[in-house]
């Protein structure tokens, strides 16, 4: 299928990046598929747009303002300084001014002003206050689904206004009036019904894991296990279901298994919590987040594990690192010697440092790696017990696994990392135009190190990032197979057996 949109030109040198020419309404046509009544009702939302949605939406906004103090601060605090305008990858890739973070915020802010501020109630036109009419609702649906909630803009905002939280609130309001997004809501329903985003039932999961044991045995001669629902294991590994299904995700899963095997740590996956992702965050639903997170608690209790480790998943790590205790704690039944939760990269790095595993860089000869910091790990969490651990630890593990590592342009890594273009519930085919265009800033920085430094591969630690890059890199003339999991590199480099 040929693309019926223009693929943006790459920026030759990110140092010289220019603000794109403004194209008002360039992306106004793009709307993701609307959730069907069955998807909506499974989550307790109205099936279709309700009568009187205008008032009901405003009432829901009022509830959210009472619940989340931050939301009101963000809606009040903006001084229109413009610092955020050229920081969003979707704006940079599309030139649509409504994809400037401030304009995206203003879609909700203008309605807030109309109904919740004295000036907006009396003199709406003087303060940019607007009614929530059908045209505004259409803009909400369109442009709040063109925000990947990556929070890059908030790094540059002098007030720290978090557009992600505003877009989550807008999606929550739309869900509550019966206008949900199919991709997210269908998936959350699958988690409730089957246990994971993919809809992978337990027998299929067991069969897949058995197949992986055979593959690793064939490859290495070692009996590396992929245990499922093993009561009394030390570690419960919670990982995105894409790790069971997709490439290069599964190569990362094989890496985790080899690390556990070589370290001699007993571990298990759970068929009940066979998904790390928590898409409820993307739709701003605390209630749904709570239900999804509690599956992990239940699995940990049922399997009597001592610790919980998360696999390579960006927003799952945000939910785990930042909210797990509030959502599903207390975790006093786990072994207090270990962090709750722990990231697989922390686990692997500790083993590398204390000699628990040995890596052989020569196994990855010919590879020059760069690393894509995933937004939710970089900007919404931490890793390890020191500041910046989320940047240092993945790079340390990569450097221990490959002969050469090069970072991309400093404006595009660490907390200034660009989103892959598919995060926040946008990794869906109906938004492919946005995904391709939104990848432009990241791919520009990647291409620069490919051309100048001979980078051959880019590692990522998020299932969404891996799938997104695999899909969109060919649009920019790069090979889909240059995207790798960090633990895929570990998997190649690890020396199995005879490790004393």
């Amino acid at each position, binding site marked *: *299928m040929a693309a019926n949109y223009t693929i943006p030109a790459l920026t030759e040198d990110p140092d010289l990046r220019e603000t794109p020419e403004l194209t008002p309404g360039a992306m106004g046509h793009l709307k993701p*598929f609307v959730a069907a009544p069955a998807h909506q009702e499974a989550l307790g939302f109205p099936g279709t747009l309700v009568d009187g949605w205008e008032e009901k939406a405003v009432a829901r906004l009022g509830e959210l303002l009472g619940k989340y103090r931050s939301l009101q601060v963000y809606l009040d605090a903006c001084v229109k300084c413009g610092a955020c305008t050229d920081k969003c990858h979707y704006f940079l890739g599309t030139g649509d001014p409504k994809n400037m973070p401030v304009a995206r915020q203003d879609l909700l802010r203008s309605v807030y002003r109309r109904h919740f501020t004295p000036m907006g109630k009396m003199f709406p036109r003087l303060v940019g206050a607007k009614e929530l009419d059908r045209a505004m609702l259409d803009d909400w649906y369109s442009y709040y689904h063109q925000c990947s909630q990556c929070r890059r803009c908030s790094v540059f905002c002098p007030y720290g206004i978090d557009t992600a939280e505003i877009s989550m609130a807008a999606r929550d309001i739309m869900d509550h009036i019966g206008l949900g997004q*199919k*991709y997210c809501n*269908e*998936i959350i329903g*699958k988690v409730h019904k089957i246990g*994971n*985003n*993919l*809809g*992978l*039932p337990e*027998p*299929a999961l067991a*069969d*897949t894991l058995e*197949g*992986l044991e055979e*593959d690793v045995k064939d490859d290495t001669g070692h009996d590396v296990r992929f245990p499922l629902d093993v009561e009394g294991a030390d570690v419960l590994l919670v990982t*995105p*279901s*894409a790790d*069971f*299904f*997709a*490439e290069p*995700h*599964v190569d990362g899963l094989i890496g985790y298994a080899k690390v556990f095997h070589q370290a001699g740590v007993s571990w298990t996956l759970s068929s009940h919590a066979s*998904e790390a*992702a928590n898409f409820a965050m993307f739709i701003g639903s605390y209630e749904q987040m709570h239900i999804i997170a509690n599956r992990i608690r239940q699995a940990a209790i049922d399997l009597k594990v001592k610790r919980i480790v998360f696999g390579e*998943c960006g927003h799952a790590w945000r939910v785990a690192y930042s909210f797990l205790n509030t959502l599903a704690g207390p975790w006093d039944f786990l072994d207090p010697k270990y962090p709750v939760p722990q990231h697989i990269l922390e686990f692997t790095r500790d083993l590398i440092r204390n000699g628990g595993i040995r890596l052989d860089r020569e196994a990855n000869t010919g590879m020059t790696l760069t690393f894509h910091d995933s937004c939710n790990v970089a900007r919404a969490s931490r890793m390890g017990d020191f500041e910046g651990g989320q940047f240092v630890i993945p790079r340390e593990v990569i450097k221990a696994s490959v002969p050469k590592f090069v970072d991309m342009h400093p404006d595009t890594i660490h907390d200034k990392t660009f989103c892959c273009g598919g995060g926040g519930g946008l*990794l869906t*085919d*109906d938004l492919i135009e946005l995904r391709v265009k939104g990848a432009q800033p990241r791919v520009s920085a990647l291409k620069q190190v490919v051309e100048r430094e001979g980078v051959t591969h880019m590692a990522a630690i998020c*299932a*969404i990032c*891996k*799938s997104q890059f695999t*899909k969109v890199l060919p649009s920019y003339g790069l090979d*889909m*197979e240059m995207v790798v999991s960090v633990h895929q590199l570990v998997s190649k480099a690890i020396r199995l057996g005879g490790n004393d």
Partner: protein
Amino acid sequence: MSYDVNGKTIDHDEEGYLTDLALWNEDLAAIIAEKEGVNMTPEHWEVVNFLREYYQEYQIAPAIRVLTKALTKRMGADKGSNKYLYELFPYGPAKQACKIAGLPKPTGCV
């Protein structure tokens, strides 16, 4: 939203996936493939048939690795790779091949 097959209309969703999987047949698969711009060769049918067999047993499409392994067994090592699957189904073996095989779309971070 429907396909016309031998005078019958068969419903599909916004993306072209069948709403009733039981209504699939080979003529329909050929029509879906044509819409996708995929020219069905014996290798394509091999993939489609395996997807359907696996789905019958597990109610889900096989993981890419499970699929490539099965194809290696059936057609040889040179055809059991993710790259080869993309040659057959340029929009992605999981999604495009599932659509043609009448299976639901794999969802999530894939």
